[in-house]
């Protein structure tokens, strides 16, 4: 084995080592998408792209009645709901991964598809 061979083996090893640590970073996080997902009775009913300068307002059908969703400046909220307790409306705007809006009576969940820094939130 010549010196060049040894160098080559070492470089291959180093490249492999670097790839081993760097590749997972890309496969885990991927490209950062800002999308809110709206689930109703277990099914995804709408995906909303959230951008800084776009806003929207739309009404969806919950389990027992309609509710209205508003998006603005990368935030999303339930503006109005005909549900009995209105906890979902009181929840207000959400904008970070891991945050959710939940409406129990209408079985609605709104969340982001980006990976959260924590496994769950207590509160």
């Amino acid at each position: 084995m010549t010196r060049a061979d040894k160098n080559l083996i070492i470089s291959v090893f180093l490249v492999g080592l670097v790839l081993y640590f760097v590749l997972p970073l890309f496969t885990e996080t991927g490209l950062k998408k800002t999308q809110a997902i709206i689930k109703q009775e277990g099914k995804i009913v709408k995906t909303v792209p959230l951008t800084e300068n776009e806003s929207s307002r739309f009404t969806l059908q919950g389990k027992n009645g309609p509710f209205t969703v508003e998006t603005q400046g990368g935030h999303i909220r339930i503006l109005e709901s005909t549900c009995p307790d209105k906890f979902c409306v009181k929840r207000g705007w959400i904008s970070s991964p891991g945050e959710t809006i939940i409406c129990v009576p209408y079985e609605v969940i709104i969340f982001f598809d980006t990976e959260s820094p924590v496994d769950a939130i207590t509160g």
Partner: protein
Amino acid sequence: MITKKRLAGMAFAVILMISVIYYGLIFDRTREYAGEEFLMDTLVSIKTYGNDAEHLKQVTGQAFAEMRRIEDLTDRFAEPGTPEYADSDVCRINEQAGKTPVAVSEDVFAILELSQKYFALTKGAFDITIGPVIDVWGFGKPDQQVPGEEMLKNALVLVNNNDMVLDKQHRTVFLKKTGMVIDLGGIAKGYATQRAADILKQDGISGALINAGGNIRVLGRKAKKTPWRIGIQDPRDSSRLLGSVELDEESCVTSGDYHRYFMSGQTRYHHIISPYSGYPAGENMSVTVITKDAAVADILSTALFILSPQDALMLAEELEDTEALLVTAAKQILHTGGLKNKVEVREKEAYHYDKS
């Protein structure tokens, strides 16, 4: 000199190496199964980890079924005359208050025993006989209101866990006074969460996270083998995390004044009612408790929330394997000594926090 043959060999080695790395990255992954169901007045999500996807789906379904069973047994608001009413031990116990002892399921009996134990341990801060007071406030019903003094006083005289008589031999429960009402809102979710965890553990899955609306229990490890990290919500800004804590075979439950409340004039009235005064407890904004058993974590988060911050911390320090983090009404973040190296407090601007 590098010959063509050698170069080919090297290229082969490189390809082999990359393949091995990719194989490790892609195929060494544990499977994850995630399920969600609306249960016990909240969203319950269960994530399980293991090698067999079909098995994960099946045991997760069993865990949900167990939680649904506990929900049915403890549902206090079923309509009389319906099958749900007949299935609910709690409805039957309340109906027979002042009349006769009621035979109950093993689970409800276990819940009541645990409640009685912690009633004594918390000097009455945790009291499931709070039902009549909850009812005059209207929590759990469509409309809430601030009750009149007289009404509240009459409800409060019915609140005393010592008037709940348990007969272990016959597995019966008797509420001594007519009008007494037990409410398991401060324990049922935690108990159901723990039962789900027990079932998943028995079935030998490698990791799981059960989250019943912030009542959390973890088991084993997730796919990446890193510890579970749980965010604690800022009680005054729902878009921020106060900090985070690592869990290991533990449960974590938070009681806060910001979830269920109503406004009357300028005042906010929340749903965690002190059995001492009959009014919403006002000395803390949120209390997070970490301990092994999810039912105990649920009980203690409610009890410590009702106590003064000093008494709450003292009690948490006394109890074995129990840690607590409090955000007081005076915007102070306090925690037990055991959390010193386990909790990371991020939100330092809006609160006073002295890490020492």
